């Protein structure tokens, strides 16, 4: 097991290195000079030339790439072209904002998705099953943009239940400690603010969680149906075991492997796919951080941002793979 883990971690290095190379080349292939973009439409030619030189963008790409990797190996993520601040210094609050949102979205997706899938499988071909599967179909096909604006319209503007934008009540700002606001407000014992943060999380959480929720529901249902048809379940039921235990203990445990895979993949996708949600809900997360960086051609920020997301993505996959063994003793890593 330990050997397997170490081998997997070592495998990550060439993957991530390859990533840096591809990302580096792609973003430099996009036309548009960062200096021009930063200085704006109104800037003079001399200004653009001067800034290009200052940023070292006049060197050939391979020199820039080698420099970048050298710095990266020293743990230096580079300096933002736009804000002139070290990326490592400024990236955490954005990443934290997205992590918090993604976690909430994932909790919603897993709790609702898994349960809907189980119940659908349990009462196969019932009205609930049909309704849930139609909703799941809608869920994967609904545009997040539209869903987000509709949520705001219904729950904020008409019902006044929930706020539309941001992470906090701007009139009562939160003092950041870890930048995970749910945690920060608890540490400070501000339960009113905790509730406020939770309220801000619900609408974007649902918007972001809808697609994974639908996918998880469908995956759980089909996986459960397969398991529930197997002999040991039939035996358990014949022995008179309560249906609840049959479903939630025996069946679920055996059906959970493909669901875990899906959850792992979706979690990684959430991080990258948060841009639309973050735009609609004015959420200061990593998706928008990178998106803005792309508009400004802020190369170091784009590179580091994508690298970080890629890292989290492969890391989650690693965790999922390791979890298999914990959930299913038949799987061994030798």
């Amino acid at each position, binding site marked *: 097991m330990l050997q397997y883990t170490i081998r997997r971690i070592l495998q990550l290095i060439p993957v991530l290195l390859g990533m840096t190379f591809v990302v580096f080349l792609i973003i430099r292939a996009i036309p548009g000079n960062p200096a021009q973009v930063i200085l704006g439409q109104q800037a003079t030619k001399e200004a653009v030339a001067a800034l290009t030189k200052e940023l070292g963008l006049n060197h050939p790409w391979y020199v820039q790439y080698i420099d970048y990797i050298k710095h990266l190996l020293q743990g230096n993520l580079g300096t933002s072209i736009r804000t002139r601040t070290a990326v490592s210094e400024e990236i955490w609050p954005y990443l934290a904002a997205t992590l918090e949102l993604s976690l909430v979205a994932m909790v919603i997706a897993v709790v609702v998705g898994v349960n809907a899938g189980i119940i659908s499988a349990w009462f196969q071909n019932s009205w609930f099953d049909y309704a849930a599967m139609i909703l799941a179909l809608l869920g994967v096909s609904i545009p997040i943009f539209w869903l987000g604006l509709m949520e705001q319209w219904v729950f904020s503007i008409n019902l006044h239940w929930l706020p539309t934008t941001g992470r906090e009540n*701007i009139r009562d700002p939160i003092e950041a400690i870890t930048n995970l606001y749910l945690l920060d407000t608890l540490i400070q014992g501000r339960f009113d603010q905790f509730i406020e943060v939770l309220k801000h999380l619900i609408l974007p959480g649902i918007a972001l969680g809808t697609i994974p929720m639908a996918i998880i529901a469908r995956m759980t249902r089909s996986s459960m149906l397969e398991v529930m048809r197997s002999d040991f379940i039939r035996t358990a039921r014949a022995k008179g075991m309560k249906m609840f235990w049959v479903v939630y203990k025996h069946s679920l445990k055996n059906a959970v492997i493909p669901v875990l895979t899906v959850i792992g993949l979706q979690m990684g996708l959430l991080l990258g796919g948060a841009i639309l949600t973050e735009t609609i809900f004015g959420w200061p997360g990593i998706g928008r951080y990178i998106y803005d960086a792309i508009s400004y051609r802020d190369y170091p920020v784009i590179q580091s941002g994508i690298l970080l997301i890629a890292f989290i993505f492969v890391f989650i996959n690693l965790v999922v793979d390791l979890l298999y063994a914990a959930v299913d003793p038949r799987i061994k890593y030798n």
Partner: protein
Amino acid sequence: MKKKSFLLAFVFLMILSSALVGCSSKSSNGNSSKGSDGESAQKTLIFGRGGDSVGLDPAAVTDGESFKVTKNIFETLVEFGKQDTQIHEGLATKWDVSDDGLTYTFDLRKGVKFQDGTDFNADAVVFNFERWMNGDADKFPYFASMFGGYKGDDGLVIKEVKALNDNQVQFTLKRPQAPFLKNLAMSPFAIASPDAVKKFGDKFTENPVGTGPFKFVEWKHNDKVVIEKNKDYWKKGYPKLDQIVFKSIPENSARLNALMNGEIDLADGINPSDADQIKSNPDLQLYERPSMNVGYLGFTVTRKPFDNPKVRQALNYAIDRQALIDAFYGGKGVPAKNPMPPVISGYDDDIQPYEFNLDKAKELLKEAGYPNGFEMELWAMPVPRPYMPDGKKIAEAIQANFAKIGVKAKIVSYEWATYLEKASKGEADAYLLGWTGDNGDADNFLYALLDKDSIGSNNYSYYSNDKLHDILIKAQSEVDESKRNELYKQAQEIIHEDAPWAPLVHSTPLLAGKANLKDFYPHPTGSDWLDGVYFGK
């Protein structure tokens, strides 16, 4: 079976309740202030806007979102009017201009302090100008475009800035510059605290200190900028608010949603199509920003067949401008016939517009040798701007117009930075673009956008006319206002005849605010004074 349905209902309830956690009470409608005032009027203004600032050192940036904030932290020697670009006193209370237009002597306001407690005086003014003049295009990009260069450059208009005494400062120019005072009133030339500049160095842009009504508190990139009341502000009784938060909400509809839900108090970038909804809402009010912009369709005159003025005129005749305004600007805005808006001094109202006339357009195309039209690319802006709320739809409407005279336009669009870069290289046949004036001067439109000197920067049309160039250069140093206006009228005639663009519209950008927001006057430059703004009951 009974058990089953009970369980089902239970699980359903669980899901529902978990989804509705915290939905219990009406959320942050924040009509009260968190402060000593208790239940009295609101003292914090939350201003929702589309983007973040680039930097908060106004001399080092060129974007409107930065100036929107710095306008309230810093002050300039002279200021624009409340809703126009007339010159009024600012940090200077009086100024004398010598008859030859070469010497400007300013009397400075006494008793003014920077927000860090240091004194504002003539030395501070000299320090700021020396700082900019000793800089370069990279550090202070706007300085050269308004004052002709940096120290050592022949083009630099300013020969010397010296302190006559504590409260008097004198500028000596190398040659007269007509828009000199208007330039001084621009946000980038606001006076910063010399001590703070020295103390923070490169980080001054994150720690701005000026003499303005509000002082800087905090900047969370991509999220918000917070400024608070400067208690030692020289103007008694101002500012009226305790705090302003500039909050970035990129999506126009989401920003309006936040306003309707009471999370923000003021929102810019309102879609023209939402205007009626705001007017009919008793909790909100609609603001119109005085127009100082132009949206246009530029032709790259070095490309065939756009090198033929008749073709360009024909296309000008083929656009139904009023229909564009009705459909995409919510009827707000005026059809454009000149490259600058009517509010600018020197505007030539005698120009006869290219009215919508397809017969005339066809006739001109025939004369130009294209009786059956031709194929072209029509570039559509990918981002909304006040002068171009929806580039793609406007391009489609123009495409339909052009089709009627046999011109087949293919709509092309790129991501914004790519769009600007490719257009500036002259790769477009015709491109949609626009401009918002910086200082309300004709030079800032005509010279900046259509002079041959501006090819490679803002003259994306590659339009070059020596006669026009001579007139524009002459106008730059003409101090007599009426003579100057006459020159600009001549310039507009030449441009009208050559038709390097099809000017489309001078739009009216819209903002919306809470109904009880008082004394907010949107400024044509796009950066608003908020010192007099307050909330009524």
